[in-house]
């Protein structure tokens, strides 16, 4: 088993969860409805918790402590997709991102339940079960607001158009893609993206939102290789502010 390939895979999945979890938590106290406030806060807690469980797997493979991994790296050491670090913007963008991201995540973890790396396969069974609540939440709102009023439809459509090229960046391939597939650690980004497109089409067909021809879109890549937008470093600074004051503090 190529351990470098495995670690890179774990880093990118955990970093996605941590960074989007942090973005979700920014809705705490700001949601358009109290229920949505609670929903985004709960999903944030799930995602940050899941990222820690994966950082723990990395720790078992010889990497540093989860807190050190989460709070002391710079932007160019993070492997999250640029999609997850974009600011929340309006609620419609956050909702579209939540839908596109979690639809991919639940398929990713479903594929990982069959990973040859047993600790990851075990964790994936658990995470997949939790993510069903996230996709349930996303699908419910997308179906409702995607067919509600002219304003809600046009807002979501605009956010969808903005988000899609970034969403495709989630499937940026690893340098070790073939090793991961060959060793049965992960089925690969291509299979994941195909299943994701199918599922996105199924849900959006129940709304008045329009999907562009996939071939006309260009993925915004770079995140998996540590090349990020200007939005990541400020997020990391804010997230790690408390930790950096006293790294030895017990929480």
């Amino acid at each position, binding site marked *: 088993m190529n351990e470098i390939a495995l670690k890179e895979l774990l880093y990118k999945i955990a970093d996605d969860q941590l960074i989007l979890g942090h973005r979700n938590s920014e809705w705490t106290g700001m949601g358009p409805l109290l229920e949505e406030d*609670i929903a985004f806060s709960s999903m944030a807690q799930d995602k940050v*918790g899941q990222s820690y*469980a994966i950082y723990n797997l990395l720790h078992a493979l010889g990497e540093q402590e989860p807190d050190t991994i989460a709070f002391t790296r710079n932007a160019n050491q993070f492997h999250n997709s640029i999609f997850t670090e974009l600011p929340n913007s309006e609620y419609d963008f956050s909702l579209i991102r939540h839908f596109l991201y979690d639809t991919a995540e639940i398929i990713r973890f479903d594929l990982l339940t069959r990973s040859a790396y047993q600790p990851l396969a075990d964790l994936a*069974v658990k995470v997949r079960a939790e993510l069903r*609540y996230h996709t349930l939440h996303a699908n419910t709102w997308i179906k409702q607001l995607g067919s509600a009023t002219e304003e809600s439809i046009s807002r979501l459509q605009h956010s969808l158009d903005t988000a899609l090229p970034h969403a495709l960046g989630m499937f940026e391939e690893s340098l070790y893609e073939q090793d991961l597939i060959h060793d049965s650690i992960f089925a690969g980004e291509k299979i994941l993206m195909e299943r994701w497109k199918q599922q996105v089409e199924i849900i959006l067909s129940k709304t008045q939102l329009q999907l562009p021809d996939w071939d006309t879109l260009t993925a915004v890549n770079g995140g998996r290789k540590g090349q990020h937008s200007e939005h990541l470093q400020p997020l990391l600074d804010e997230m790690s502010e408390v930790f950096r004051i006293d790294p030895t503090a017990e929480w």
Partner: protein
Amino acid sequence: MHNSITKEEVLTWLEEVKDPEIPVLSLVDLGVITAVDIRPEGVTITMTPTFVGCPAMDMMKSDVLEVLHKHGITHAEVQVSFREPWTSDKISTRGREALKSFGLAPPPSGKNLFTDIDVLEHATCPRCNGTNTELKSPFGPTLCRSIHYCLDCREAFEQFKPV
């Protein structure tokens, strides 16, 4: 050194440890204790969290250690594992009763029920036992609870989420 202790004995001690969010429910009845390993050198308890991000996990771990120490187990260890993941079907019958007495609807039981959305839409009201209820939000005040509304009692209630 610990040769005389049995697994059953340890589990009886652990009934004292409650879920910090639901003080009437023991960790044993919650189903998060997945193994008790008694060896001459010490006792190892294996636990698995209800939700991966469960913030109460650290507290539960230290409560378990405290109870073992109290019973004279000096070399006790708690390990967290996802090998045998927690599902809501792991809550015991007694645990389900405890949830109800606490005013929380127990999770619906059975395999593959989550794919059937009706289960969430029509949770059983812990007050009147009726199912004339609707789902308000799959996310509640803690990770393991959803929010529902009983159309008969005209009151909101929470359900322990099926996972």
